[in-house]
């Protein structure tokens, strides 16, 4: 018992000493602790706790804990904001794509409608042309418009007036008799005769082109008048 009085102080000393001599934490431990605090802070944000609830603020011994917690909370907040922004951007992009697609579809539909309308007009022009643009015929070595071809030319003039955009080529042709060159000139004369007549019917002559094929493009190749009379002709072609 003689040493009993030392026990308490010794214990105190030992306790204090052991406290004072508590070994310093290693870098790994600090890193792990910081990560733990970081995770806690990250979770705290997700749980809706404000930044001021950092439990490590008072731990002056280990300031990295408070820092880690705050970093975790900040990171969680930044991640949240980035996610929100990405979602917003995607929504905007989706909306724009949808709008673009609709515009393109509208445009295609409009074009299709216009094309169909143009085709319908073209079809109408072609059908009208097929009816109106009939050949006219001439006597041998002549380029005078014959009496019975006047209604045909009137129909052509009516067609040109009904379709003010239409342009027509007049091609003069001859039968096989006579020289190649003279017949080219004669074909030119026949095309010109129709052009002059159509002008008198009030059609702008600039809407016609003329060409001569002479006797180079016969419709019929037999050597008789039935064939020759078909070949002595003006053809009218929609351009």
């Amino acid at each position: 018992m003689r040493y009993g009085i030392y026990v308490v102080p010794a214990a105190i000393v030992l306790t204090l000493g052991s406290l004072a001599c508590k070994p310093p934490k290693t870098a790994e431990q600090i890193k792990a602790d910081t990560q733990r605090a970081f995770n806690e802070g990250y979770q705290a944000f997700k749980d809706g706790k404000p930044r001021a609830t950092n439990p490590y603020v008072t731990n002056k011994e280990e300031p990295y804990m408070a820092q880690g917690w705050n970093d975790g909370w900040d990171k969680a907040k930044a991640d949240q904001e980035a996610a929100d922004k990405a979602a917003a951007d995607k929504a905007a992009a989706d909306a724009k794509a949808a709008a673009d697609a609709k515009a393109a579809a509208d445009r295609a539909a409009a074009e299709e409608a216009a094309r169909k309308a143009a085709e319908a007009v073209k079809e109408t022009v072609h059908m009208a042309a097929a009816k109106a643009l009939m050949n006219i015929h001439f006597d041998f070595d002549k380029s005078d418009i014959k009496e019975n071809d006047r209604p045909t030319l009137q129909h052509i003039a009516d067609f040109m007036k009904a379709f003010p955009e239409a342009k027509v080529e007049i091609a003069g042709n001859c039968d096989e008799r006579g020289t190649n060159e003279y017949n080219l000139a004669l074909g030119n004369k026949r095309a010109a005769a129709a052009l002059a007549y159509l002008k008198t019917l009030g059609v702008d002559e600039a809407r016609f082109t003329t060409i001569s094929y002479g006797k180079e493009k016969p419709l019929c190749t037999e050597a008789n008048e039935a064939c020759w009379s078909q070949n002595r002709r003006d053809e009218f072609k929609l351009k």
Partner: protein
Amino acid sequence: MPRFLIRTLLCVLAAAGLSAQQTEVVLTATSSTKLVLAMTAPKATGLDDASIAAEFTAVLRRDLDETGIIAVLQERLPVDGAPAKAWKEAGAQWLLSTRLTKAASGDLKLEASVLDTAAESGLFSRTYNANKVVPLRYLAHYLADDLVGRLTGEKGVASSRIVFVRQVSNGVKELFQIDRDGADLVQLTRNGSLTLSPTVAADGRLAYVTYKAGPPEIWGQRRKDGPHERLYPASGAGGMLSSPTWSPDGKRLAFVQGDRRGNSDIMVLDLATGRARRLTDSNGINTEPAWNPNGNQLAFTSDREGGPQVFLMQDDGSNLRRLTSEGLYNASPAWSPNGAMVAYVSRFEGKFDLFVYKLGEGKAYQITTGVSTSESPAWSPDERRLVFTSNRFGSSQLFTTDLSGRQIVRLSDLAGCQSPRWIRGR
């Protein structure tokens, strides 16, 4: 005398036999004024008899026959090596001996000599050398041309060629060239469109009308062996264009331009300046210009007095006068190479025939007679014959005729031919 009759009969029979062949003589008249030539069989080295017969002897015989001035003695020939006297008694005035050699390289050599059987003296001797790309036939042509030259002072035209238009398919016509004897057909254009009215300058430059762009354009060669380029219009469309015709010096091109009022006019394009000048006065159809050999006058067809007639004028459009007086349809004038004649076609009773107007006499002579239509006369370079197209065997084919119209020869059996032009070979 009986002997002469027999010979004449044999000649007629020979002609009849020949007319059955591909290269037929439609009509042959033998004339006692022809020089009678006999050929000994060619002596040959390196060539077989069959190819000599087909590629040389037959070609030479036909060339000489078509000269119209040399008759080849074909029957009752003395044996080879017989004395000149024997050939003279057989009727030959000239005796032609030939030797053909084909070297290992393929090069050909022809040695030819002619003996005057009366004087018993040589009057022609020449050696022809040709490298292997030259066909044997050409040596026959060269020899025939020289024999004619020896006889008349002007080389013959056996080695000449014809440029013409031929229908390839519906609405497509192209230019072709063929040897004067109907061999060696060559296609000159591939426009895939109407290609018309060829004209060949003295140096071989071609010009023609093509519809390959739609409206007609005049294309041709600005320089010898040059590319085909557009000559007129320089840009845009030129209306109706036809009948380009080189002036004799090849510096100008006469052609026809039609307007939208139906007139067509003779124009002359100066190739150096590119400037075109109108010579006629827009009073209807004026077409088919044909230069005289001096290049200071043009013949052309005009309907200014009603139907088509042939007129003449200076190359500036002055001194206009009508040439043809008879008939209602006279066209397609072709001025002869020596300037004294104008060939043309005339329509009579629905048929077209060839006529030749002799300027010195002021008279026209009919060449072909009414069996069918004959068109587009063009002169041979030696002025002895005309090439033309005729439908006498159906489709339009190429023929030649002498100026009497008695010796008409079908040049080839190609169908759908038009607008022939006769040019000298190289």
